[in-house]
């Protein structure tokens, strides 16, 4: 597998207009911050600092490594409970 699966939730999903996409990981994209910067060109909401990210269903930061086959997600701060 050479792709990553990217999920969007809540306001991020609505703004982006899709709940998920599949992306062939371009060379040079090795961590979440790099992927996010790349995606933010198409999806400006991802440039907002409040949007959080997860890698393989665990909260992640910009320097969290990513690899082909990973499940990546972006979403606003949670409001459950």
């Amino acid at each position: 597998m050479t792709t990553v699966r990217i999920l969007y939730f809540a306001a991020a999903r609505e703004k982006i207009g899709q709940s998920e996409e599949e992306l062939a990981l371009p060379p040079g994209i090795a961590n979440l911050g790099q992927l996010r910067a790349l995606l933010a060109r198409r999806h400006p909401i991802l440039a907002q600092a409040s949007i959080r990210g997860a890698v393989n269903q665990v909260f992640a930061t910009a320097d969290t490594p990513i690899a082909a086959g990973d499940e990546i997600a972006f979403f606003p701060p949670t409001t459950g409970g």
Partner: protein
Amino acid sequence: MLVRVQTEPFDINDEIKAITQGRDDIGGVGSFVGLVRGAPGFYSLTLEHYPGMTEKTLEHIAATAITRFGLLDVTLIHRVGTLKPGDSIVLVLAAASHRADALAATEFLIDWLKTDAPFWKQEHTTTGAIWVEARDSDEKAKQKWQDCSNHD
């Protein structure tokens, strides 16, 4: 430990029975039930979540509380879908030998669930649909558990 995401209401009496039945070492069960509060112009909310990460996160929070407070059992149930004012949203149960641990853990569990579990509320109002904003007070409530290594 039980974590569950569901659309239907929960019965807290059944859930307490499930964790207490067949044993006699539990001295107290602390619990919290969260409900949808009404407001002018607000008629319902829709809860969205991240299937998979939700369960994983709830299990991690429950396991952390069990270790930290020496709990005998934990139940976390969160509803999703459309809920109306007065409906229950979330149930937290913490069972311990002694009441202080059960009650402190209940607070810990709901504080962490609020900030870490991937749920999002959208409110349906007479002026349209609005995503609920996260509250600073929730983040602060969680941080108080990190400032000290032990609860006292």
